[in-house]
């Protein structure tokens, strides 16, 4: 029984990791783009971006998952998502990337706006181009500033992946819960569900160590 349960939980954890990884890879660059949109001097774009961020941050991720997965099928003749698990993964990934990009964008915006104006001006009078100022001067200071809030958000993401269960994506919590409902020939088993907590704890513990190390490596300067 133990081997069966652990095997199924490992499977679920792998799916959790996939969603986690893809969300990070997509949400960080998209978040940067959204943060530029929310800071642009072109007003219509700034308002549009900030409205979208408000909506995404102001509604539950679970609701967004349901809308993204089910609504296109309601409007069109058939659901645009591939059948089965692939479709559920794709829909989850898009919902998660968009949701987390909006949160990240606000953190990035804070990080960029937090770099004193004098830094950019010092770069300008030294004849640096805009991109040199961003990459050589502002970026590192921004990274240092945003490390704590980003770490926090990423740890939250580890656990938020469990929301994908609502559209039956077979992540870790679903794998555990299935033993309660009945799967692999067992039903009414409660402990596998509780045991998923160990996976989350270990994984977020590992990330915490990683983030602490990164923060310590940025300790050589102060902003």
């Amino acid at each position, binding site marked *: 029984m133990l081997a069966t349960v652990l095997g199924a939980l490992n499977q679920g954890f792998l799916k959790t990791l996939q969603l986690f990884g893809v969300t990070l890879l997509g949400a960080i660059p998209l978040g940067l783009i959204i943060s530029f949109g929310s800071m642009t001097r072109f007003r219509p774009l700034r308002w549009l971006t900030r409205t979208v961020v408000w909506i995404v941050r102001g509604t539950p991720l679970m609701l967004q998952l349901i809308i993204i997965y089910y609504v296109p099928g309601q409007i069109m003749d058939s659901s645009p998502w591939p059948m089965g698990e692939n479709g559920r993964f794709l829909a989850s990934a898009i919902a998660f990337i968009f949701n987390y990009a909006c949160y990240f964008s606000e953190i990035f915006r804070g990080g960029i706006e937090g770099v004193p104006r*004098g*830094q950019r*001006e*010092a*770069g300008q009078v030294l004849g*640096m181009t805009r991109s040199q100022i961003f990459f050589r*001067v502002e970026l590192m200071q921004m990274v240092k500033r945003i490390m704590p809030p980003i770490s926090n958000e990423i740890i939250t993401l580890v656990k938020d992946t469990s929301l994908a269960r609502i559209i039956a994506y077979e992540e870790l919590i679903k794998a555990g819960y299935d033993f309660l409902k009945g799967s692999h020939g067992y039903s009414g088993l409660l402990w596998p569900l509780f045991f998923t907590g160990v996976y989350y704890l270990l994984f977020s513990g590992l990330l915490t160590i990683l983030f602490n190390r990164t923060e310590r490596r940025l300790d050589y300067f102060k902003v």
Partner: protein
Amino acid sequence: MAILEVQELSKRFGDVEVLRKINCSLEAGEALSIIGSSGSGKTTLLRCLNFLETPDAGRVLVRGETVFDAAEPKKPSEAALRRRRLHFGLVFQSFNLFPQYTALENVRLAGLLLAKERPDFREKRKEILTELNERAMFLLTDMGLADRAGHYPHQLSGGQQQRVAIARALALEPDILCFDEPTSALDPELTGEVLRVIRSLAEQRTTMIIVTHEMAFARDVADRAIFMDGGRVVEEGPARELIDHPQEERTRQFLSRYGALS
């Protein structure tokens, strides 16, 4: 020919006219001090010269070449703007060193970025880097900071940081070095070391514009002085004369508040 000529330069922020038709000029090797109360427009003038603000009217000429003309129909390209900028260097009141770089790296960075754009950078990489390092080290030594080259800004005192900032501005060999209240952010006991450095630059005939509240310093170091009030040049003349024997009533009032008049 004057190295710098400012003609009818005007700038407004909303309803406030910060600069009203400023005219002034500077000869090579000359140090000019600008005095005046806060809000008189002296910092804005420096920022306009360094292209950090765009004047609404007027012209700026360096060695007879127009580097800024408000009547110019289109904005210069970024590349052109950078070339024009490099005529000027600016030392900020709040230093603005880059915190993630050591003193040496701060001094070297801009020169390195410019060198990378040279077509022969790849072949001569080693020599160029050695040259940049030596030059940065030479400047820091000149500022009395040879033993601080590897320190990060937060490990330096305010006076040391400002001297690194001066070395950084000098590294690009600007035609005109501008100081925006270089000692205003410093504790009184640290102003001396920065003023000494600026004084020695003046002795080496560095062309400089110094915005300062240190009246005694403005008088002793600069060749000429300008008193600004309400965005206008009220009085202009040899530094010693202007500060010891001001002709205008407003200059007199300002200087007596500073206790500079006996």
